[in-house]
């Protein structure tokens, strides 16, 4: 019993539990210039990533939606990590994070931004079914970034 709960703490680290309880940058973003919706039809998780981009930099970022603790915390920590970063760095960080979850390689790529707090998701790799939960917000971020700059934000 105690073993399995300790085991679970590798997945559900305190930082993850905290961001699940109190997600940061959660809600609408009036100044959003880009947005994308992501969903995981198998488990019903939904996330919307909103970006305020200015001259190749993420001036502001927010997310909305509902999902499990892993996907909620991942979205929350992602917004914290990316606020103020350049779009280029955000894309690099996506790859670093993706590698962390799929190959477990946590060495930061040369010239890439550091994982920082995002390293708390290292334990997710041991739960293959949950990797998609942790990457949902990130894939949605890339979809939002790939939106054409002049494309109006959908408000449906």
């Amino acid at each position, binding site marked *: 019993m105690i073993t399995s709960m300790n085991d679970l703490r590798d997945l559900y680290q305190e930082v993850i539990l905290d961001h699940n309880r109190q997600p940061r940058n959660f809600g609408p973003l009036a100044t959003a210039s880009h947005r994308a919706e992501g969903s995981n039809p198998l488990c*019903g998780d939904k996330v919307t990533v909103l970006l305020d981009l200015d001259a190749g930099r993420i001036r502001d970022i927010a997310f909305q939606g509902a999902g499990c603790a892993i996907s909620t915390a991942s979205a929350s920590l992602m917004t914290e990590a990316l606020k103020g970063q350049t779009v280029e760095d955000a894309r690099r960080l996506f790859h670093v994070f993706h590698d962390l979850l799929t190959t477990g390689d946590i060495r930061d790529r040369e010239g890439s931004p550091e994982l920082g707090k995002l390293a708390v998701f290292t334990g997710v790799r041991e739960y293959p079914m949950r990797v998609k939960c942790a990457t949902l917000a990130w894939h949605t971020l890339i979809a939002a970034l790939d939106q054409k700059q002049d494309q109006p934000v959908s408000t449906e």
Partner: protein
Amino acid sequence: MAMTLAASAEDTEDTREAAPGPTYDLDRVRADFPILAQKVHGRPLVYLDNAASTQKPRAVMDAIAACYGEYYANVERGVHTLSQRSTAAREGAREAVRRFLNAPSAEEVVFVRGTTEAINLVAASWGRRHVGPGDEVLITELEHHSNIVPWQLLCEERGALLRVAPIDDRGEVILEELDRLLSPRTRLVAVAHVSNALGTVNPVREIAARAHEAGAVVLVDGAQAAPHLRVDVQALGCDFYAFSGHKVYGPSGIGALWGRRELLEAMPPWQGGGGMIRTVSFAGTTYAPPPHRFEAGTPAIEAAVGFGAALNYLTALGLPAVGAWEAELLALATERMAAVPGLRLIGTAKEKAAVLSFTLERIHPHDVGTVLDREGIAVRAGHHCAQPVMERFGVPATTRASFGLYNTREEVEALVAALHRARKLFG
């Protein structure tokens, strides 16, 4: 059916204090299922995902091994001894299905891959012939996707309309609404005997009677009922009954469709190939009578044999005994789970089979599923292929614990204890 179930529940009530537990030897039964005696993440496996699929007793494995090891050959067309033995074994399984359903004749039992294929068969064969523009097919809000999508496909193709009888907050079909939706345009009523997401036991006999009054044909999706309660298709008064082998402790990839003889005889084939013909010529082909008309190609021989063995195993234990024990586990779990703060049961029908669907406040079902898995407890988390049900109750997903004949009180307690711990972890 509902009456039978209520009666067994009462029996259980009477005997609980004197002799708690099932009327069969639970330890011996568990020993019949070798897979249960293992550890998952260092904890004894607690298998509570029986509504998704059940584990297999040694009798089923032995029957399949004997088929392969002693008499396997292709069926129906061989004059040699092994072919005849294989054919006899498979036809023996068909007879086991007939007995299990109390069907009038084994010729009314069609082997299929499972419940999904059975429903698709009826939609493709009976449906295409009898459902036309402006006609209606009536289902209920609690159906599994496999009893929704085949009818959507049929209605789209034929210009017919799919009607849906709503359920109430307990997860029971509102019969007055069903009555209101029945009309002379209703060609078919397709309804689950037991809901996979809610556990509701539908009053199928009553629904069939009302549907017949309106002149409709009745198909019952029995996937979730067959493992838990005694099915008597003649007493139910339905026209088609479908169920799957893998949910009654048998192999996957096999199931049965029972259909009323006069309906089956009037239905065209739905797949062409070997085994389903009488004569083939380029001028025209004539078809075999049911059930072979609907069984094109070499069938799943060993799976049919295993299916028959599973039904015999279940019948030997006795479905009333199995149903009574599961009702006891369900009652215990329902009572214990009411004490878990923030737990909401989804599906609180008066008549329920061994399914407990629930949500935990502020904990997503997938997190619950992961926490339970680390405790060795296997449950299902998700929409259970019943998205309209999830929408009806305003939840994206639920966690579902479903019981089988081999589950124990201790396993119920382990589940509840783990839920308390999950709350602590996420609290």
